[in-house]
């Protein structure tokens, strides 16, 4: 049994009278400690899958298992608890709380977790120990995204879910972020999922899942993932 299992997951949205199938019997598996890149065109259902996996959305049918837990059947508080303890999220637009300093944004996450990491340590890990007392508006995009990653990993989650983490960043910064994510996965043995529409970064992953029309069309296992530094796009 894999660490993460997506079994025949369907997700339908009702827009008035029309029903849109975002996910249509999606199946994939992810092992613990894997760095997974999910690629696919817009509207292929990658974000939906990530949201479901992150406990932000529910399935219409099918089953989602994370570390033996049936996430698809979690409701309300249990679902929140799952998000709280097991998931770290990184967004395209960082979603930092503007009113909090960098370290406070991290603290925002750690204060609600049991096994959280020391915020300062995490900040060091992401290389921002000098900027901990800066407000998001005082940080560059990359720095902000690093704070976001710090916030996500400080919770010591089982899963780190990243939705287009480099989407708003320039090439160089993007690379640094991806490096951080790869390092995190390797060093902390953390399971990391990265959504991207940029297929070029796929070689850094242990597993590449290609989405198309609400299905995980192609799952490729990469036996020799490349370090981010070596990837060019």
């Amino acid at each position, binding site marked *: 049994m894999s660490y993460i299992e997506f079994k025949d997951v369907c997700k339908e949205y009702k827009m008035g009278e029309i029903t849109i199938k975002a996910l249509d019997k999606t199946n994939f598996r992810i092992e613990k400690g894997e760095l997974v890149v999910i690629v696919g065109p817009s509207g292929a259902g990658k974000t939906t899958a990530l949201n479901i996996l992150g406990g932000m959305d529910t399935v219409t049918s099918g089953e989602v298992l994370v570390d033996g837990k049936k996430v698809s059947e979690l409701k309300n508080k249990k679902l929140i608890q799952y998000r709280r303890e097991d998931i770290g999220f990184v967004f395209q637009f960082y979603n930092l709380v503007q009113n909090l300093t960098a370290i406070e944004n991290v603290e925002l996450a750690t204060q609600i977790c049991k096994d959280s990491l020391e915020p300062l340590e995490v900040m060091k890990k992401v290389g921002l120990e000098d900027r901990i007392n800066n407000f998001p*508006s005082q940080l560059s995009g990359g720095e902000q995204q690093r704070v976001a990653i710090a916030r996500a990993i400080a919770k010591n989650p089982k899963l780190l879910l990243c939705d287009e983490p480099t989407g708003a960043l320039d090439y160089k910064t993007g690379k640094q972020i991806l490096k951080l994510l790869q390092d995190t996965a390797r060093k902390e043995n953390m399971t990391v999922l990265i959504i991207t529409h940029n297929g070029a970064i796929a070689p850094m992953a242990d597993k590449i899942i290609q989405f198309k029309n609400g299905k995980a069309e192609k799952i490729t296992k990469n036996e020799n993932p490349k370090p981010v530094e070596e990837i060019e796009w």
Partner: protein
Amino acid sequence: MKVKKALLKDSVKEIKVGYKRFISILLMALLGVGFFAGLRATSPDMVNTIDTYFKEQNVYDIEVLSTLGLTDEDITALENIENVENVYGTYSNDGLVKLENKENVVKILAIDDVNNPRLISGNMPQNSNECVVEEEFLNLIEKQIGDTVSIELGEDETSSEDEETKPFLKETNLKIVGTVQSPIYISREKGTSQLGAGKIDSYIYVPKDNIQSEAYTEIYITLENREKYETGSNRYNKYVEEVKQNIENIKEEREQARYQSLIDEANQKISEAEEEFNTQKQEGESKLQEARNTIESSKAQITQAENEVIQNEKSMNSQFSEAEKQLKNAKEVLNKNEAEYTAQKAELETTFTQAEEQKQSLQNTLNEIVVNLQTVEEKYNLVLEQLKKPDLSETEKSILEKAKAELETNKQQLETGKAQTEAGIQTIENQVTEGRNQLASAEAQIESGKKQIQSQEKTLNSKKASAKSQIESAKAKIEESKKELEAGEAELAQSEAEFQSKIQEAEGKLIDAKEEVNKIENPTWYILDRSDNAGYSSFIQDTESIENLSIVFPIVFFAIAVLVSLTSMTRMVEEERQEIGTLKALGYNTFHIVFKYILYASLACIIGAIIGMNIGFQLLPRIIWSMYEMMYTMPSIIVSFNYENAMLGLSIIYICIVGATIYAILREAKSVPATLLRPKSPKLGKRVLLERVTFIWKRLNFSHKVTVRNIFRYKKRFLMTIIGIFGCTSLILAGFGLKDSISKILPYQYENIFQYDMQVALKTTLTDEQRQNAITNLKENEKITDVVESKILSETAQNGENEEDVQIVIPESKEEIKKVINIIDLETEEKIECNQEGVIITDKLSELIDVKVGDTIKIKDSDGNEKEVKITNIAENYISHYIYMSKEYYENLYQEQYNTNVLFVKDNNLTEDEEEEISKEIIAKNEVSTISLTSNVLKTLDDTMNSLNYVVVILIVSAGLLAFVVLYNLSNVNISERIRELATIKVLGFYDREVYSYITRETILLTIIGIILGLIGGYFLNFYIIGTCEIDMLRFVKVIDPLSYLYAILITAVFSIIVNIFTYFALKKIDMISSLKSVE
């Protein structure tokens, strides 16, 4: 105009989508305009109600009173004044209706064509022995329509120049045929009276034909074209004032005329009386004279009779003495004769004795002779015997013969001697007999003389006796008539005295009457208008205080409305930055862009305002009216759509909301499209001042730090929340504070100041003795602990224009009164007592007539007599107005003897029933006119006070609405503004509760700040409201109960909790995915 059409569509769509925002703006407009228009309309509606009422009942515009009554000539004179339409002369008087334990003073009014009473039930009187009464009066005297009420007319002191005062009413037992409301007595306070307890309790209308009065007691005037003026308006007041001025001009002339006619009348009466008095006097005098004459003549008669008697007695006496003299003479003669006779007799007796002696001697001789003879005879017989003896010797015979012869000779001789002696005896005897006879005849003569005298004496005596008795009887008769005369004289003296005193009395009266005539002061006309009517003026005052309130409250709402719409619209514009940018980029000009938002705001504003004003116009006047309905008996309020206030309210709210919108939008729309198209940089995080105070900041936990930062981040919201909560709390606190103030009035007045349990009014007509009796009786009652004597006068205190009805309390002893009334100085808060220098007046009175310690005020009684008094202290007091005056000051001021008329009684902690019983017992005594139990007073007042609770309800409801709208709106804005942040923390795994507290912690903190400020604001608002809506009769206690602060806090908290519950669900509903996806 395609462009506009598209925009219009967009606007309508906008409303559909952002309905919450639309509704919140609409609600603000609704509340703001509703309160503004409703409150502002209340006062005009009330004025309109009274105006309509007064017009329908044909209520006077001007009232003319005179101290000496009014006449038909006065009416004619008044009718000729410009703008006067109708003049009505009518009558009123005070009367008493007695109940078991109370005398009710009623105003008896004539049913006329003016001030028509409004029929409530039953019908108007048809006959002179019927009447209609005030509805409440029926309850008061426990009667029903159809029952009969007996009116006792007071002694008419007012028209004292009229000696043969006819009773004011012909019929005093009146059948109640209906109940009415009088337009001239709309309030509970109906003025003062000379009767009973000095206050008019109710009124009663009787047909004019049941009234007899020499002059009109009042004249009512209605003005021409008055339907064009609204009562109480400046125009109306001016109009009335002008006419009053004209009346003022004829006033003196009419006063003089009335004076003259009264004087003439009185003089004529006096001269008539004088004439009568004189004739009566003369008559009386002549009668007396006659009586005197009779007495005199009878006196003379008696004297004459007396004289006669004396004369008679005299003559009789002289007659008698004459007769007596004669008699005496006769007696003397007789006596002489007798003496002579006695002497003769004696002489004769001697003669007789001699004769007797002679006779004796003769007898003796005779006897000797006889003896001798006998012896001789014996010897002779012896001799004869011897001779016869045969043996006899002749010698012997011879000797015997011889002896015989010798003896015979001797015998012879003796015989002759005997004869001779016998003859001698015979002669003597004859002589004696003759002498005796002579004596006897003399004696007889004397005897007869004696007898004669005796008989004469007898007759004389009898004559004397009869004469004496005659005289005696005459004398007795005289005595009797003398006595009669005395009695007559005494009677005369008495009737003389009587006559004198009568005459004196009559003269005194005449003099008095003359003096009275001299005293007929120039009558004074009082030219009054409606504002002098207590009910009307307090009503108008109340409308003014509502008007004042209607200025402050809407300001709060408008301010909040502006803030709410400003934030809402700013938020809306911010959310639609991109659209604005797009439109701008597409080439729409600023006006077109602004148009959409203006349309949006205008629609919300106008719809809200129209709904609001309609609700407000209907609801608020009625609610406020229902509160005043308790105090005034009038027809229900006429609510109307007040265009002026509607338009004003609408304009204000429109300017506020649309102005705020335009401001918000212009701020954005002036940016270039490029800027607009870029997401607006979120509000930057900043360190707050508190962070620099590290020792505090360090102690705060993480979430608190966040809260503090957020609060300072959104200053506008911070401000609004605080203002909203502030408004809410302060309104509630003011409401409860008002209630506290009101509810404290009774205990303060009747526990702290007045400590008596009942107030017993004595009748005015008592003698000192009766009064003393009543007091002693009460004092002896064992259920009663204290009886304090006092005098209470109901008068009017005046300073310049201002006047107020007051009760003047004049305690008999300034020590005793302390047992029942605490007179507490307002400033020093110490107990004070009445003094010689001046009077103590109560606090509210000093405020109303605007005087302070050291000032002088006038006090007027119901006859218009004025006295000036100096104020020495101002005392704490809460209900009605009092002046405390010392007994000495009173006697000096009024130059009148002090008489107790009221007793303050304290009992032995009796229960209500016991008090009721004892009061019945007391009233049963004839000396007592009224008893008012403090417990009853408390009950009645309590009802009045309760009516004020409506104010509290209004305040709480409006505060709640305000709080709700503000908080709800803010919470919506807050959520929408921070939706990404909230979504983020939700994604981070905050539980719903944590998300909720993450955001509401701020709200709670702001609420707490708002509440604290609100408590302070409420404290002042409370005083403001107290200042504007305090009733003249009451002094509200400026105290807010700690519990009220608690209530204000709790109620505000409840409102904020309700809003927070909404927030909770709104937060729960936040869709993380879509919120995070969208780019700002």
